[in-house]
């Protein structure tokens, strides 16, 4: 009796540890995310508030994107008795050149002025205070490699090169356009010269001694005039903090989604643990019932246990989560540009309470069903059956089969519907819904699936040896338990595989698009500025003259003058016959591209439909100088912005001032890559702002972005997989405990320790493989469905290598999950096990 009690205690400890870990991990993720985002938000706010609050009054143009504050306002503000000091901030394009002499980025670097009175201070070095000095934004410095003391070149408004000594680095923090464009800061006078900006982007002022802020604001508002907005530094800070906070919120929402997946998986694991424990203690409970315990007492005892475990584990999870949040912030601070990696961790009561509540509630709810089941068992029936043998002779439920055979086809039908859904969003919602239905179907059919899967591999496992044969028999004995354990893993496997499929499909689709749209080796464009100046004609001429190039196509475009997205775009491609140059054309609906000569055009199919155009019809091209009549020679479908594609001669006549916008360069056959590169860069040598993209490099950048996203998603979902593996280990450990007698029997009959261990390894690997393979199946199907709904013209691609990796990981997970249970099973002494019960 003592021995059983002790065994019970040991069992108690074991089940506490593993169940608690599953809950704690889920809670850790939730609390960690909350702590991380609270800290991030606080640090964003700190930073913008700190810089904005230096000013009492800030004057901004009402139209923040295009407007400016007139220069003379500054003098008037300075003259106000309420104002002590004031400074204007000049901002405009100031293309910074990298060490190779090429302009940085596809948008010109922002040039700003800093002076004695400035919201920003140097994070390293000093602010510039002489005409030949400049400070760089930290992002620009890391993009170019410039350090304090280096000489950097910036292009002036006339395109001339100006050299500056870098005196310092400025951390502009979350300022959205700086993190994208980078910035170079000059003294006020130099800033005006370098950017050519007319007005001020902002006027900052400090109130005179003793003047209340609001009074200063009112006084400034009186002179600032219309088209400006006057607010206190604090108000500006709050506005900026809100914007930055919104970034943190988006990040937090994304992370919480992953945290929820972890909690869901933890819930499945907890449910299974309690279900097993209740089944194992059925006799004990029946005995309780027989000696007079009422149903509610049995129910209460199970729920109370869940409550205690849930609370304790959640507390542990909250603690770990605080650590995780702090660590995440410390690591992520740099990447997220908070500029304050040393900031104190913000711990709000919400993060703690939500973590505790989520963990405890999840545990309670997961335990409710098993508790109810425990309650409903008639005491005598429970006394008669043993947990070990329970379920063996039960037939797989007809009900399950029926439900699954409704749910799974229903899911497939919804996926089918989603293909005709009007918008990508609607399609995605349908696919997500179908995914849920399918998941419920898999949950319902789980025991059948496990049975079928085990039956399928049984012959093989039997042939392999006694350990694997016994494992196959064991896996069959409680399909429900096995199914629940595997489904926890299925969740993670489905999501990871689904994302992998989407990722790989996007990759192949993008590659295909790149091939289609840029069948070139290099592409030359201007930097995006408000005017989008053309590429000088000389560039295309030089490129054509170079022996390394085979084809140089220049694209020019113009609109019919309609503002906004409704404009009709006219384009031409110069440098090769249209049918070769127009690589974006997928299909000729009518006519022939080769027939487009002076006097005729090709039109896109949807434009032709909208205008009722067919081959041979007249079409009107609206130019600034009036309308010109041309004839439709071909109707095509193309992945391009233009609606009308004209012959170069017609285009030149219609829009005489237009220069080249995009130049595509195809290298000559056999031209060395390095030589071609040199030739391209030589052609743009005198035009540093021109952007040269090699298609290979674009492809690589694209693949890098997708690859990073994939790793991030896998890492986020990884925790759910870890929790699921805990669940499988737990299930196995509990099974080992209830099979102590059997293990002893097997050992007495001469099964070696290693064989006993191997049996459990096989069992764990089998469970993990079933879970993973079902997940992979679902993931491939729904990854395809989701990608197909979201993207037009998707090229479906299954990442075979990655999936093989997942299968390998599942085997590894099984090995891991079996370590402790199998050690315990093999270590138990035969005589002690025979003596118990």
């Amino acid at each position, binding site marked *: 009796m003592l021995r059983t009690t002790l065994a019970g205690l040991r069992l108690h400890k074991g089940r506490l540890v593993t169940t608690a870990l599953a809950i704690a991990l889920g809670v850790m993720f939730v609390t960690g995310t909350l702590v991380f985002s609270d800290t991030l938000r606080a640090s964003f706010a700190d930073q913008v508030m700190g810089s904005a609050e230096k000013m009492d009054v800030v004057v901004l143009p009402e139209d923040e994107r295009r407007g400016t504050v007139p220069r003379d306002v500054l003098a008037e503000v300075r003259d106000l008795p309420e104002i002590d000091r004031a400074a204007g901030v000049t901002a405009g394009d100031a293309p910074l050149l990298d060490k190779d002499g090429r302009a940085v980025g596809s948008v010109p670097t922002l040039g700003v002025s800093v002076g004695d009175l400035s919201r920003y201070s140097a994070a390293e070095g000093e602010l510039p205070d002489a005409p030949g000095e400049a400070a760089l934004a930290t992002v620009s410095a890391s993009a170019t490699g410039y350090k304090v003391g280096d000489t950097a070149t910036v292009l002036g408004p006339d395109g001339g090169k100006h050299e500056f000594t870098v005196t310092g680095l400025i951390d502009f923090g979350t300022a959205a356009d700086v993190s994208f464009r980078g910035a170079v800061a000059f003294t006020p006078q130099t800033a005006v010269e370098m950017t050519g900006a007319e007005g001020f982007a902002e006027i900052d002022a400090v109130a005179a001694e003793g003047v209340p802020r609001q009074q200063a604001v009112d006084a400034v508002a009186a002179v600032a005039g219309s088209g400006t907005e006057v607010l206190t530094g604090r108000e500006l800070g709050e506005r900026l903090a809100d914007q930055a906070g919104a970034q943190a919120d988006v990040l937090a929402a994304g992370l919480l989604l992953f945290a929820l997946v972890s909690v869901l998986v933890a819930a499945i694991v907890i449910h299974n643990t309690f279900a097993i424990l209740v089944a194992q203690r059925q006799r004990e409970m029946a005995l309780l019932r027989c000696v007079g315990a009422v149903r509610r007492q049995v129910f209460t005892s199970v729920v109370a246990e869940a409550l205690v475990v849930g609370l304790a584990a959640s507390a542990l999870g909250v603690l770990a989560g605080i650590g995780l949040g702090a660590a995440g912030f410390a690591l992520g601070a740099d990447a997220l540009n908070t500029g304050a990696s040393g900031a104190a961790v913000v711990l709000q009561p919400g993060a703690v309470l939500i973590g505790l509540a989520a963990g405890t509630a999840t545990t309670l709810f997961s335990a409710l069903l098993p508790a109810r089941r425990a309650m409903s068992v008639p005491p005598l029936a429970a006394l008669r059956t043993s947990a070990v043998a329970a379920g063996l002779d039960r037939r797989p439920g007809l009900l399950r089969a029926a439900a699954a055979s409704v749910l799974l086809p229903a899911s497939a039908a919804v996926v089918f519907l989603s293909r005709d859904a009007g918008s990508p969003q609607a399609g995605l919602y349908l696919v997500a819904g179908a995914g849920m239905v399918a998941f419920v179907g898999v949950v319902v059919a789980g025991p059948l699936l496990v049975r079928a899967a085990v039956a399928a591999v049984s012959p093989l496992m039997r042939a392999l040896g006694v350990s694997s044969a016994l494992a196959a028999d064991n896996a069959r*004995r409680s399909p429900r338990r096995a199914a629940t354990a595997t489904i926890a893993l299925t969740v993670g496997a489905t999501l990871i595989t689904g994302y992998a499929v989407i990722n790989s499909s996007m990759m192949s689709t993008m590659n295909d698009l790149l091939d289609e749209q840029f069948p070139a080796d290099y592409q030359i464009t201007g930097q995006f500025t408000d005017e989008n100046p053309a590429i000088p004609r000389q560039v295309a001429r030089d490129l054509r003259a170079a022996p390394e190039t085979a084809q140089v196509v220049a694209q020019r475009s113009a609109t019919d003058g309609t503002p906004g997205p409704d404009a009709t775009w006219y384009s031409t491609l110069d440098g090769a016959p249209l049918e070769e140059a127009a690589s974006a054309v997928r299909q000729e609906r009518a006519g022939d591209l080769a027939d487009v000569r002076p006097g005729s055009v090709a039109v896109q199919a949807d434009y032709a439909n909208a205008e009722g155009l067919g081959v041979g019809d007249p079409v009107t091209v609206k130019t600034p100088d009036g309308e010109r009549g041309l004839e439709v020679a071909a109707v095509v479908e193309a992945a391009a912005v233009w609606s009308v594609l004209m012959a170069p001669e017609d285009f030149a006549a219609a829009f005489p001032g237009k220069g080249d916008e995009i130049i595509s360069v195809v290298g000559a056959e056999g031209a060395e890559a390095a030589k071609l590169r040199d030739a391209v860069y030589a052609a743009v040598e005198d035009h540093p702002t021109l952007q040269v993209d090699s298609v290979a490099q674009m492809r690589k950048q694209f693949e890098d972005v997708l690859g990073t996203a994939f790793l991030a998603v896998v890492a986020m979902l990884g925790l759910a997989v870890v929790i699921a593996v805990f669940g499988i280990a737990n299930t196995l450990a509990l099974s080992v405990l209830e099979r102590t007698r059997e293990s002893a029997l097997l050992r007495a009959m*001469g099964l070696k320790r290693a064989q006993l261990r191997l049996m459990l390894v096989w069992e764990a690997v089998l469970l993990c493989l079933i879970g993973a393979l079902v997940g992979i199946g679902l993931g491939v199907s729904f990854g395809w469905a989701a990608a197909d709904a979201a993207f037009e013209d998707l090229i479906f691609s299954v990442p075979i290598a990655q999936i093989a990796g997942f299968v390998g990981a599942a085997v590894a997970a099984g090995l891991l999950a079996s370590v402790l249970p199998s050690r315990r099973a093999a270590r138990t002494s035969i005589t002690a096990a*025979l003596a118990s019960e």
Partner: protein
Amino acid sequence: MSQSAAQAAPEQSGTGTPPVVAARDLVKVYGRADSAVRALDGVSVEFARGAFTAIMGPSGSGKSTLMHCLAGLDTVTSGTVHLGRTEITGLRDKQLTLLRRDRIGFIFQSFNLLPMLTAEQNILLPGRIAKRRHDPARFRRIVEVVGLGDRLGHLPSALSGGQQQRVAVARALLGDPEVVYADEPTGNLDSRSGAEVLGFLRDSARELGQTVIMVTHDPVAASYADRVVFLRDGRLVDEVHGPTAETVLDRLVNLES
């Protein structure tokens, strides 16, 4: 197997053929120092080939312990146990496992069968563990004698207690082990089922020359044996040849007084 072995069995061991199992000065102490329990206190005993021996004694007298030590399931504190020519007290766990696998059969009081295997699979399990091919003729004969013919495909949960024990007996005998150990094989059975199992054990000793060592509390069960040895406080105190239920009961009463 051989008729002579079967006939030799009732005789005092050591006279004719060498004993199958021999224990000398067995001592088994559980725990240490102050709380030590001497479960076996210098037991020397031999079991002849083809003999059916019962071990009896009051509860806690060391019967199960003796059996476990004889079978290599447990280590001894001192003394030796031989199985045939092999001294098993010197063997390490791995060798003991192989020894049990290849040379010993077991029948326990309960939980004898693996619940997920059918009766037939349970019977064939030791062979599968040992990667041994079983002799189909022997299998058929044993199954027939045990009377399980139509029950072979059932799971243990669909068998009565007596049927389950008979499956266990068939399993222990199929591999033709040098010795079969049975720890209260009829402890959970009613007298009729118990009689079937015991009769079968006796027949296998007589007809197949199977050495059987059985632990029991029940004088009626012991009366099926050729010889009964009595344990008290870890010592061998008495023995009866050709026992009947009455003689066994007498001795037991003497023992406990």
